[in-house]
């Protein structure tokens, strides 16, 4: 590629003589005799013309002169006026169109707002020519026309007009969407610390779940209401009640410990392997599990396992007094499930009811919690 040589194809008799003459001044490369009077060879590109003239003067017919090499390619390219003209036109067109803004981008806004701002900008652009666009004016126009825009910067980057906005965050008072504080529990109000809003309850009141505690407004001396966000700390004694029933005589269904396992290996929905074990139990529970044996989608093997647990029913006679503490603790544990963080247990007690061998333990947990917003 980098050797700048010219290949000549020559026709004529007694070429050896001419070759000897040429080689006195010029290096000859790759001489090949194709036929008796036909041959081709290479010389350096710079000597090609003189060799061609010399051969023609000696009566040889030069059938072909082909050039190759970087120098020739460059020279050839420089003589390709069409390509050069094309490149100049492309360059000129590129430089010309580079002066125009072709795209408007909006950052920092939501989808609907983006389109609105884009339309606004397209309509209000004085020109797409970069030098005629005043980014400062555009910033002012957008800020004045869109309330949700808090701050804005407009810049021309390449051929894009980039509008970067920060949305204004309205305070809740201006949004006007307020909700009252509503009790989420049944309880006795013990302490109220109102921050803002209008109270609907007093200390010592018993409230039910869903009762309004604080309204989201204030009333001035003229009797006019002003919407505010209701805020208050309202402590109340809340009762959590859970029961556990115990039967002195009952029939229970228990597992004996015997199991039978059936496995199935499936490929997709097709069963590849299965152990056909007979289930001999007369009464049993069934549990099914499925596990992927491979982690690819090419061969999705799955193992389906079915476990049969033998169960039996038996009569149980259990005196309540023997398991009383255990039953009470069970009822307490059930009640404690509803306890939340920051709740304070004030009192714990339980009641027992008995009727015909059926004992009901009623556990009552009294807690203090903030039911305000």
């Amino acid at each position, binding site marked *: 590629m980098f050797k700048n040589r010219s290949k000549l194809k020559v026709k004529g008799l007694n070429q*050896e003589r001419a*070759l000897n003459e040429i080689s006195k001044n010029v290096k000859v*490369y790759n001489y090949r*005799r194709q036929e008796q009077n036909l041959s081709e060879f290479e010389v350096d590109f710079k000597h090609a013309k003189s060799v061609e003239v010399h051969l023609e003067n000696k009566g040889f017919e030069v059938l072909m002169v082909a050039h190759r090499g970087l120098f020739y390619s460059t020279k050839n390219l420089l003589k390709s006026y069409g390509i050069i003209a094309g490149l100049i036109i492309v360059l000129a067109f590129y430089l010309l169109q580079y002066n125009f803004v072709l795209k408007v981008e909006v950052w920092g806004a939501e989808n609907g707002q983006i389109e609105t701002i884009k339309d606004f900008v397209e309509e209000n652009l004085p020109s797409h020519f970069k030098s005629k666009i005043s980014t400062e004016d555009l910033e002012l126009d957008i800020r004045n026309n869109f309330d949700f825009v808090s701050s804005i910067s407009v810049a021309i980057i390449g051929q894009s007009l980039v509008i970067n906005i920060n949305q204004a965050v309205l305070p809740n008072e201006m949004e006007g969407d307020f909700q009252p504080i509503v009790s989420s529990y049944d309880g006795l109000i013990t302490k109220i610390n109102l921050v803002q809003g209008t109270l609907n309850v007093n200390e010592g009141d018993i409230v039910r779940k869903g009762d309004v505690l604080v309204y989201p407004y204030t009333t001035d001396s003229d009797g006019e209401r002003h919407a505010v966000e209701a805020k208050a700390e309202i402590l109340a004694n809340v009762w959590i009640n859970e029961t556990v029933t115990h039967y002195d005589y009952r029939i229970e269904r228990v597992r004996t410990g015997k199991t039978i396992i059936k496995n199935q290996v499936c490929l997709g929905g097709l069963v590849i392997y299965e152990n056909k074990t007979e289930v001999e139990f007369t009464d049993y529970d069934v549990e099914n599990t499925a596990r992927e044996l491979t982690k690819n989608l090419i061969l999705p093997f799955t193992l389906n396992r079915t476990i049969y647990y033998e169960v039996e029913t038996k009569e149980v006679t259990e005196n309540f007094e023997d398991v009383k503490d255990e039953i009470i603790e069970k009822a307490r544990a059930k009640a404690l499930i509803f306890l939340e963080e920051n709740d304070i247990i004030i009192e714990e007690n339980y009641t027992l009811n008995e009727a015909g061998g059926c004992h009901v333990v009623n556990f009552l947990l009294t807690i203090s919690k903030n039911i305000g917003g």
Partner: protein
Amino acid sequence: MFNFFDEIKSKVNLDHNLLNDYNIINISGKLLYVEGHQGVTIITKEMVAFKIKKGRVVVEGQDIILNELTENTLLLQGKITKMEIF
């Protein structure tokens, strides 16, 4: 400057003036380099002949190409089977 041919000539006890006509070196039967030729007389695919001082050399072979030719050197490439000096 190191010269391959001069180095070889210095190893023999001969008059160097008698060894200055031409030099030919055959490399693996694939390349033949000649110094001191006085013109090519025949070039075909099977045979190349050239003049030397006080004689001629005929090289025979297959697919012979005259790889490089200057006023007094030449390089042949191809399967070289025979070389005769007349």
